[in-house]
């Protein structure tokens, strides 16, 4: 379990270190991210060979102490976070390892980034390892505050407004969530996740679950509670947007998946509500992405759509004790995290080179940020869910299960959503392909930056993940139900 302790504690320690010594922040960040990656791989390997693990911090047992639980689903989420974290750290490396003395505004952004990002990482890890709802509430708060910090980091008026809305919505969601936790305690006298099945049997318990999901819906930016999200994700710095869109919303989605798995077949109404809202979000997000004029906004609305898709997958999955359909949702989350992070990093590079992110101005003739555009295109393939990406395997598992049940309406919605995502993403890629003979003879191709490497590496990983789906699926198969 050493790995679990490292994952839950090290990022926080590094965050403190980075805050205390701003000039060395990047070194703290890089070291912590790499150790985090190693620890998550070790943890996954250990779970693959030895099954689930559980540990009580300081040997205090459940009701009072904090217990860490690591199973296959947690390992998949932790590895996902660690991989994205590595790429984000690489992108942030382009600011330089050691800050010069007396830097100006730029270095405030850099010094602020690392502690906030490390705290976000720690909160996510702790969230995935938590075994009870109250601890999860606490990790949500840390996550929310540090994520808001990331949003506001650029200090522009837009990003501050977005951060305010984000924080206000997040707090309201948390309060509702907390009420749900308290009611759950009132209903069954405990708050660990294993108590969820018992909740289904009482009226108070069902109310508690409803409130918990309402809180999660705000935090996950599930339609129609997504209002705070596009502005927040599109106005942050690229590395921050990648973290927010790829990872932070996954915290809430993960918990939704976890609870539906634990609750089994007993929460039919809630599942249907999730599926309906998910489908609506998928269509609405796609529609807004089709109409978006700015690249970052398009990608942010695509996150609304993809969250809808994942929620739909959580909602329509059959009883997990008899079917593996829920694994589709986990796989879609994994695929979305990698691809969306890659996409935001690529967009960041494109905007940095072009000086703007208007979609209509992408086909500049004298400048071609080719590598970043290519990374964007590969990430788009993953997001649409074309073979051989993990998104495709996820959709395959989902459709397979739905066909068995004869649920043709959901299948039609799923395929419709896929077509829409192809439509809005091809808008961008087609602009990137424009050029041909129009490109001026002296067209400049920007130098490679670490940000390009990060985006391309992440996008390629997302693409290759489909062929390696056997690994996450084996991990998920071992998840105790």
């Amino acid at each position, binding site marked *: 379990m050493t790995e679990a302790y490292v994952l839950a504690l090290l990022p926080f320690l590094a965050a403190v270190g980075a805050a205390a010594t701003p000039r060395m922040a990047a070194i703290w960040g890089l070291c912590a991210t790499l150790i985090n990656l190693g620890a998550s791989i070790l943890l996954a390997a250990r779970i693959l060979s030895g099954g689930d693990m559980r540990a009580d911090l300081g040997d205090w047992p459940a009701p009072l102490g904090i217990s860490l639980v690591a199973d296959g689903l947690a390992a998949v989420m932790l590895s996902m976070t660690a991989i994205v974290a590595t790429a984000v750290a690489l992108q942030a490396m382009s600011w330089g390892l050691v800050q010069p003395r007396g830097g100006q505004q730029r270095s405030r952004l850099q010094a602020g980034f690392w502690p906030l990002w490390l705290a976000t990482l720690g909160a996510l890890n702790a969230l995935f390892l938590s075994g009870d709802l109250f601890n999860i509430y606490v990790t949500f708060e840390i996550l929310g505050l540090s994520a808001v910090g990331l949003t506001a980091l650029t200090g522009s008026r837009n990003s501050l407004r977005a951060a305010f809305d984000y924080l206000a919505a997040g707090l309201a969601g948390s309060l509702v969530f907390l009420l749900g936790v308290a009611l759950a305690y009132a209903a069954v006298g405990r708050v660990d996740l294993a108590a969820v099945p018992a909740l289904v049997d009482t009226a108070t318990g069902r109310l508690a679950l409803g409130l918990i999901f309402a809180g999660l819906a705000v935090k996950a930016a599930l339609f129609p509670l997504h209002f705070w999200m596009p502005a927040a994700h599109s106005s942050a710095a690229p590395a921050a947007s990648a973290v927010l869109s790829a990872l932070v919303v996954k915290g809430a989605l993960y918990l939704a998946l976890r609870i539906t798995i634990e609750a089994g077949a007993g929460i039919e109404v809630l599942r249907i509500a999730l599926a309906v809202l998910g489908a609506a979000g998928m269509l609405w997000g796609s529609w807004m992405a089709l109409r978006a004029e700015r690249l970052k906004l398009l990608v942010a609305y695509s996150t609304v759509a993809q969250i809808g898709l994942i929620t739909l997958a959580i909602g329509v999955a059959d009883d997990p004790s008899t079917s*593996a359909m829920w694994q589709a949702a986990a796989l879609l989350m994994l695929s979305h995290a990698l691809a969306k992070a890659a996409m935001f990093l690529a967009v960041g590079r494109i905007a940095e080179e072009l000086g703007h992110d208007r979609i209509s101005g992408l086909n500049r003739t004298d400048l071609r940020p080719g590598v970043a555009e*290519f990374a964007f295109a590969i990430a788009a*393939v993953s997001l649409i869910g*074309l*073979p*051989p990406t993990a998104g495709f*395997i996820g959709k*395959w*598992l989902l*459709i*397979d299960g739905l*066909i*068995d049940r004869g649920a043709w309406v959901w*299948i039609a919605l799923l*395929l419709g959503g*896929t*077509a829409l995502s*192809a439509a809005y993403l*091809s808008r961008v890629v*087609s602009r990137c*392909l*424009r*050029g*041909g*003979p*129009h*490109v001026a003879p002296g067209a400049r191709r920007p130098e490679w930056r670490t940000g390009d490497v990060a985006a391309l590496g992440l996008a390629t990983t997302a693409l290759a993940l*489909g*062929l390696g*789906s*056997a690994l996450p*699926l084996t991990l998920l*198969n071992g998840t105790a139900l």
Partner: protein
Amino acid sequence: MTELLPLAILMTSLCAAPIILAIPERARTLRTTINLTAATLKVGLVAWLSIAVAAGGEFNLRLGIAPGLDLHLQADALSVLFLALSAVLWFLTTIYAIGYLEGGADRSRFFGFFSLCVAATVGIAMAGNLFTFLIFFELLTLATWPLVVHRGTAESHRAGRIYLAYTLGGGLALTLGTVWLYALAGDVPFAPRGVLGDLPQTAPLALTAIFVLLIAGVGVKAALFPLHGWLPLSMVAPAPVSALLHAVAVVKAGAFGIMRIVYDVYGVETVQLLGLAAPLAALAAVTIIWGSVRALTQDDLKKRLAYSTISQVSYITLGVALLSPVAAVGGLAHLIHQGIMKITLFLAAGNFAEGRGVKTVSAMDGMGRLMPGATIAFTIGSLGMIGVPPLAGFVSKWYLGSGGLDAGQPMVIALLAGSSLLNAAYFLPILYRAWFRDPPEGAPVKRRIGWMLAVPPAATAALILAAGLLANAPFSPLGWTRFIVSLEYL
């Protein structure tokens, strides 16, 4: 070592693609070297594989993706047929494209996706189950899109959008059909005479629906009426791309998919049992006539060829759908024959456009005198398409016709005769203008045609002659298809 041959064949182009994409635009020699090395290597490896398969060798490579879901590469006789076509024509088209795009922009991007496109084609040829087929089929869509829009004009982007909408839509249908079939039958490996067991008795309706979805999915690429709309539009692409799309990659992938679905997933008996052959044959017949009729009125040379492709590819579908072994030989052989004939026509048409700026039928006057080499190649290709003996097209039509009689469908003879008349009606005027009219006064030379542009069409024209004259040799397309058909119909 030999068992890794399919993987090696796939990798020659799959690895070449990212390398070429990463090469700087200026590094012309390096790019050409990698291109030609990969293409040559592939021809050699495919030849090796053909010999091994003819000797009864079996190739199966699997990679587990999810429970019950394998990535499966195999090489059987039908694979080899398609592989040989793509390897040889890729080699020739690569040479042509290097010459054609000399001095153009974005060549690294072009050749990168060109390689990826062939990798997808090769993957389709060697797919061992429907899932693997689907993966490479979609990859083909993605790899060809940048080629279609390569010129970067508004017109080519419109064509690209329409192409993408058609093919991704088809991809969705194919995906749904495939998942559905997997949900019913588990893994769907390709095997002669079908793999569905007793499903035709227990779930005939579902199987019929799946068949429609699958055929609609691959039918988009095969340009089956009414799913053919993208093909004439995508003619805005550079000539080597058109050649590749029409002769080797896209439409052939569709036609090949129809073969796989009918022969190796459903099996001839099941298709007959479910009564699915007749509608498919009727659709093919409509497409044959429709394409030919539309070709008559096109003045743009490449558009005329495009409609001709729509018509000719459906010969393959017709041969498959008639469910007679003799017709099957004709259809399968036409996969190759149409490929070499159509590529000849497109490469020659590209040379007309490059050498003299001639892009329309009405401007073809006197081309025989101005560019005799290209015009001879074009003539051989046209006569082959019409079905003049002893060229390749005659062999296919002969077998298709006899197959029609064999299947008790004498209407097929009338269809073939009508189609051949139409073929003659839209090809012969071009030949007449080229050979018997005088060239316009002082026709300007736009560009000198170097050997890289001249040799490929000559080579494919020679192949047309060879495929017809040597039809009875064991390794000729006809000989090989007889071998395949003997496995499908026992």
